């Protein structure tokens, strides 16, 4: 049959153009003002429907120049900045800083102060992990239940901190050489009571989330990271241990008095989001174990500062890198002294920055909802990433 156009032109055969159904990728902004970004993190996702094809993270919204500010202050004056980097684990960050200065200046600290520091830092680890449980629960989709349940126990710990040092978040309590003042008289009994509450709280979280079918469905095999990748990215802390590497600075590069306690390091198998959650949950239980032992061993009285401290701290010229196990991983302070009373250089190695850098390969190829869960499982504190 001969086909003709309107002009009378003869078409030999109908023209069929074959092409696939084309869709347009969409750029979607997660952050900086998005409920799931835990602060001011921005992530531009290129999505094909619900599948993430590319992810570009942007950081730096919280940059305050803490390193440079520390270099223009006395060694002891810059302590407050440490509270404001990792504000969820301020005691731990303070501890790294004072430890670095003490080692640089060669200051010996009394045993009782060491115990109080360790106890407060471990409590702060619990505080931080409770925060993770709450925020992560919200990311996965609990309508606030995980959040309010964990905040109940957080309040107890914060009450204890308030009784010890007068503040609930920005403590500024450790000093180079020891502590600012003695903890209150009932510190040990209060701590034991708080620990009882915390153990109940850990059980509550466990019952709410661990075995929930929907929770497992959302977290299993999401954001998988192999041990090789984790090490290559410099990932530390619970994320590294969830990937199967039993690396914990409290053991592998012992500092303070951690060698006096018996506890265990939880290690995941698959390196997915669910393992990260489980590792943190188990880590909380181990923290409780450490705390119980430390509270029993702590000397009931004694000095909390060395007898003689120089009025102006002038360490010999030299450098030090002090690193410790923060709730989120290896928090390090690199400090160079030129013999004056101000550090010549302070560099903070923040665990979240490195953990966050591993986000991109975790989210590409997954679903949009998985990207949110993977981001939540990193447990970022943006103040610490940007410093």
């Amino acid at each position, binding site marked *: 049959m001969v086909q003709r156009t309107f002009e009378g032109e003869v078409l030999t055969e109908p023209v069929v153009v074959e092409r696939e159904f084309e869709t347009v990728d969409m750029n*979607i*902004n997660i952050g900086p003002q998005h*409920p*799931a970004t835990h602060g001011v993190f921005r992530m531009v996702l290129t999505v094909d429907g*619900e599948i993430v094809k590319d*992810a*570009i*993270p942007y950081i730096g919204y919280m940059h305050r120049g803490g390193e440079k500010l520390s270099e223009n202050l006395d060694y002891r004056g810059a302590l407050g900045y440490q509270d404001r980097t990792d504000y969820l684990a301020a005691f731990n960050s303070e501890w790294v800083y004072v430890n670095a200065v003490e080692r640089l200046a060669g200051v010996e600290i009394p045993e009782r102060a060491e115990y109080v520091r360790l106890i407060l830092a471990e409590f702060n680890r619990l505080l931080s992990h409770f925060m993770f449980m709450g925020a992560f629960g*919200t990311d*996965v*989709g*609990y*309508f*606030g*239940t995980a959040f*309010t*349940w964990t905040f*109940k126990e957080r309040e107890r710990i914060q009450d204890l901190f308030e009784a010890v040092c007068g503040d609930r978040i920005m403590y500024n309590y450790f000093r180079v050489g020891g502590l600012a003042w003695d903890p209150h008289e009932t510190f040990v009994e209060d701590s034991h009571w708080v620990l009882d509450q915390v153990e109940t709280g850990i059980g509550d979280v466990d019952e709410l*989330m661990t*075995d*929930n*079918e*929907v*929770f*497992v*469905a*959302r977290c*299993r*095999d999401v954001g998988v990271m192999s041990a*090789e990748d984790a*090490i*290559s*990215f410099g990932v530390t802390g619970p994320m590294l241990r*969830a990937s199967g590497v*039993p*690396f*914990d600075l*409290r*053991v592998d590069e012992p500092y303070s008095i951690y060698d006096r*306690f*018996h506890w*265990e*390091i*939880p*290690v*995941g198998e698959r390196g997915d989001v669910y393992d990260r959650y*489980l*590792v943190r949950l*188990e880590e909380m239980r*181990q923290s409780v174990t450490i705390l119980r032992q430390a509270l029993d061993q702590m000397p009931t009285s004694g000095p909390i500062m060395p007898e003689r401290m120089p009025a102006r701290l002038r360490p010999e010229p030299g450098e030090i890198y002090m690193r410790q196990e923060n709730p989120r991983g290896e928090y390090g302070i690199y400090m160079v002294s030129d013999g004056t009373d101000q550090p010549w250089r302070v560099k903070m190695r923040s665990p979240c920055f490195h953990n966050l*850098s*591993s986000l*991109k*390969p975790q989210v590409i190829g997954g*679903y*949009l*909802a*998985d990207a*949110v869960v993977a981001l*939540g499982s990193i447990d970022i504190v943006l103040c610490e990433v940007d410093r």
Partner: protein
Amino acid sequence: MVLSEFAGVSMPDWIDALLRVVFIVALMTINAFALIYLERKILARLQARVGPTRTGPIGTLQSIADALKLVTKEDVRPITADRWAFELAPYMAFVPVFLVFVPIPFTETWFIRDLNLGLLYVFGVLGLNIVGVVMAAWGSDNKYALLGGVRAAAQAISYEIPMLLIIVAVVMVAAGRLAVDGDASMAGSINAIVGDQTTTPYILLQPLGFVIFMIGALAELHRPPFDMPIAESEVVGGYFVEYSGMRWGLFFLAEYTALFLMVMLASSIFLGGWNWPFGADVGLGLQIVLTLVKTSVMIVLVIGSRALFPRLRIDQLMAFSWKVLLPFAIVQVIANGIILAYGGADWVVGLVSFALLAALFGLIYQLMRQRKGEGARTVSTTPATPRVITAPDVTPVEAGGD
């Protein structure tokens, strides 16, 4: 004619119908206020909070205060929004939900109209709801809203099919029973179905149907664990992210009315509505109390699910509907057909449905076991003794960022 019964006056049918419609709209508006208050209080109890306490005695006037705030708030329309789609969407989402109340019986004689294809009407009209949602999603010119709206549309389509098949199965049973002592052609009427449940609620005959219906209802209502169209942590509220003021309030009103509606439907079809267990002779007062008690209990369960479940992912949600619920619904319909064609007794129908339900739960349990893996609950621990770690051979991975 209810109103003429009460007022003792006769009136034209159209005035009667109009009065009933006004009555339903007023009741549902008040009902939405009550439900919002109830939800806030129940969630607060489950979440170790206290909920609203400041407005009125124990916070009972909180919903009124919220409504006043919404009415007086500025109605913002994004400059790039599609004007008509954006402004009409709340009404398109809200009107169908109210229209659905036409055939729903509160008592034996309290309904707007008894339609003999009432169930078909309900699902036909309720399906229009999604048009409003998609209009809102598209008209807002917002990517979060678009994602949320598309999710809502996909979800509504997926879950209406198993629900409708289950309704077919229920109507088959109802027709079989009504053919004995009633009019089988009324099997699609909700009031006739409720009237048939004097001694046996249909949940005993179709337990699988009840479970699938409630799962579908949760999905239709965007309730956890199926709330990804309005997921706060992913799409920031979904299709109504750009709405403010009373337009947003209309979405909310529609949502809570739909919650009441779905629960009314489930309690009418499966729990015997005003009928079971006291029968039709107890009078209007007790009948309406019975209806409200059943719906209240189920509303509390639905609200409680919000506190205790996280949300599924969209692909898991779709897979659950198409690969699990739909086959079970089809099997239920076929099984009912075979049993009823051979004149099987009611207890056979119930037993088969129970067996299917057990199979469904078993399958879900098995799937979850598989996903979790063996011994997944505990992580292995190593004693904390100092040791040397040797790093495996590391190949650098492309770093994130640009």
